[in-house]
């Protein structure tokens, strides 16, 4: 018995050894692209576009690695630390400075100089993907925030139209919360919720600037404090679900389609999930409410394609990026993914003609709405957004800290980081 058991172990180990020696089905000559915002539907689309690329470029083959959004950051860093360099990676805005400062992302500026993009590319496309005036990623679409609202619940509460100002926003949330079992606003208090705080703080400030010239944070201003007070009161008075304090993306979206809460601050790519679970006429979108200054600054995020510095096939990799961003490829991509496109004029094609797209369309076209871009160039912004803001934001909502203290703590952190950067830039210029 013992002998046969030992033989079994040895045989198993031999099998493992053989597997180790055997060649893999992955060909090192192939391009490797890593996607991080994975869903089965989108992986299919990506594969189709890659097949087209392979057909156009005989001899170039592309492999895809699809990482789940939740663990993508960890896995990608592990792959890189293990010396496994993809050629092209999907790069969310808030990772960019981290990867750039680590020297892992190739500078695309020289490649882009040689290539003509259509004239109607949004003018800021390249600058959004830049750090210190060098382009490191080309956005493949924008994740713009607008307000989704549940028409059915609005009707039940006797509300005719979505809120246009902050006061109306508050009133609407309050009125809806009088309905049994329904709250007004789907607060996003857990991971990923930082941009809502930034929206409300900048909008109440009346400016989308994060810093002044010296690098002092705009969150020291009274408007920012008012913004935090606004959302704290909204939550404290029960106009957002009690457990939304710790909701992540998933929970806010399911809170919305389940009718737990009636207003949702979201990007258009969430619509794919929502449309599967709600009837078409039951929800619509509106732009984010305007602040006291008569303006509003909804967050504009992006994810782009980047090329790894460690890639041995950068030229081919750039060809691939270029292919994915071509106007016709891009249109399908933006439409299927629910993104604000990077080409002008496409937005109206995609969002016009439906209540659901109305909010995004108006945000892109009406001057009262401007975009708020996170200071993604700060090297510690990702951890600040995902950890400090969430934890201290929750403490504020629970009444452990006041809005003043919270705003000041955030402003302190951001100012320090910005000033450090300004100093480094100054030294580099000297």
């Amino acid at each position, binding site marked *: *018995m*013992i002998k046969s*058991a*030992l033989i*079994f*172990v040895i045989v*198993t180990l031999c*099998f*493992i050894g053989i*597997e*180790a*020696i055997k060649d*893999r089905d992955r060909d090192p000559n192939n391009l490797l692209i890593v996607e991080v*915002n*994975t*869903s*089965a539907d989108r992986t299919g689309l990506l594969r189709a576009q890659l097949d087209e690329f392979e057909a156009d470029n005989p001899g170039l083959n592309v492999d895809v*690695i*699809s*990482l*789940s*959004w*939740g*663990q993508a950051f*960890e*896995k990608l860093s*592990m*792959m890189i*630390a*293990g*010396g*496994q360099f993809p050629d092209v990676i999907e790069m969310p805005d808030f990772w960019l400075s981290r990867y750039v400062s680590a020297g892992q992302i190739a500078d695309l500026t020289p490649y882009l100089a040689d290539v003509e993009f259509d004239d109607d590319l949004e003018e800021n496309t390249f600058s959004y993907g830049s750090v210190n005036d060098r382009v490191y990623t080309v956005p493949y679409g924008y994740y713009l925030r607008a307000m989704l609202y549940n028409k059915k619940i609005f009707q039940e509460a006797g509300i005719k139209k979505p809120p246009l100002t902050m006061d109306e926003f508050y009133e609407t949330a309050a009125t809806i919360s009088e309905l049994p079992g329904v709250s007004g606003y789907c607060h996003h208090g857990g991971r990923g919720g930082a941009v809502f705080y930034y929206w409300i703080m900048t909008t109440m400030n009346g400016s989308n600037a994060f810093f002044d010239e010296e690098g002092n944070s705009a969150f020291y201003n009274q408007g920012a404090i008012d913004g935090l007070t606004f959302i704290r009161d909204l939550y404290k008075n029960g106009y957002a679900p009690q457990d939304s304090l710790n909701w992540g*993306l*998933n929970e806010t*979206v*399911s809170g919305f*389609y*389940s*009718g737990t809460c009636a207003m949702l601050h979201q990007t258009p*790519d*969430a619509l*794919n*999930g929502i449309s*599967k*679970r709600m009837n078409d006429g039951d929800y619509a979108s509106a732009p984010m409410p305007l602040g006291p200054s008569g303006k509003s600054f909804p967050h504009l995020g992006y994810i782009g394609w980047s090329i790894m510095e460690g890639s041995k096939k950068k030229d081919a990799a750039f060809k691939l990026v270029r292919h994915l961003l071509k106007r016709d490829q891009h249109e399908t991509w933006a439409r299927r993914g629910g993104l604000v496109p990077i080409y002008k004029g496409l937005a109206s094609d995609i969002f016009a003609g439906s209540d659901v797209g109305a909010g995004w369309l108006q945000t892109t076209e009406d001057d009262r709405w401007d975009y708020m871009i996170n200071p993604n160039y700060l090297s510690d912004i990702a951890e600040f957004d995902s950890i400090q803001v969430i934890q201290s934001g929750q403490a504020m909502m629970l009444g452990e800290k006041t809005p003043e203290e919270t705003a000041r703590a955030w402003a302190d952190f951001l100012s320090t980081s910005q000033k450090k950067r300004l100093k480094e830039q100054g030294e580099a210029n000297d």
Partner: protein
Amino acid sequence: MLNKSKYAFIMGFLIFTLFPVLWMLKISLTPDRLLFSEGITAWPSEITFQHYYSVLVEGSIPDYFLNSFIVSFSTAAMVTVIACLAGYGLSRFSFKGRTAIMTILLITQMFPIVMIIAPIYNVLTYINLVDHIAGLVLVYTAFNLPFACFLMQSFFDGSPVELEEAAMIDGYTRFQALEKVTLPLCLPGIGATLGFVFTAAWSELLFALMFINRQSQMTFPAGIMNFVTKFSVDWGQMAAAMILALIPVCIFFSYIQKFIVQGLTAGALKG
């Protein structure tokens, strides 16, 4: 009276154990559009097998199951054999370095796994086994060994050494004595070890998630993560997959429990 309270306790345990599972079963049978709209009901007004169909026919779940089974079975068998030897060594001999070894085995359990994932990834890359279930088998074996060794050691400790010595005086070699006398006594322990390691490997997620990228090599827990995307969780399919995943484990356990329950009566003290 004693009997009654016994059954009451068993019922309590059964309810506590099965309640969440039954809730998942309910979710797996609820059509997507009713999932949130019906509120809290004991049973949906309409049931569907669509989720099971999707999971079994359209997705790669059967592949994940096969991978998981290969990984769990090889790991369980390897660990049990190797740990039997080590447990025996630790139990029957007193030698220099014994305490040191036991301390090291224990310390390996104390350090958070998240901190050693990156170095292990490098080791696997080095032996060309990253992104392959064979690599997972190696890692799982290594990480389950310490506990399995302790387990086996404590079972060897609990089985009388006198019988073994008597057998050796009768002319058995140590190996024969181990095989004929001691191992049968330790069958419950072996069964428990097999069961533990199998389920540990079956449900392990962190390594599987971090070391495996290709769909073809994914184990069940890593594969099921595909149901979680940025905005939504496909609850129905996920619940269906989970319910299906419980079946092989239940079968495995009902087989293993024969060891655990009958071990002693079968082996008895025949000397």
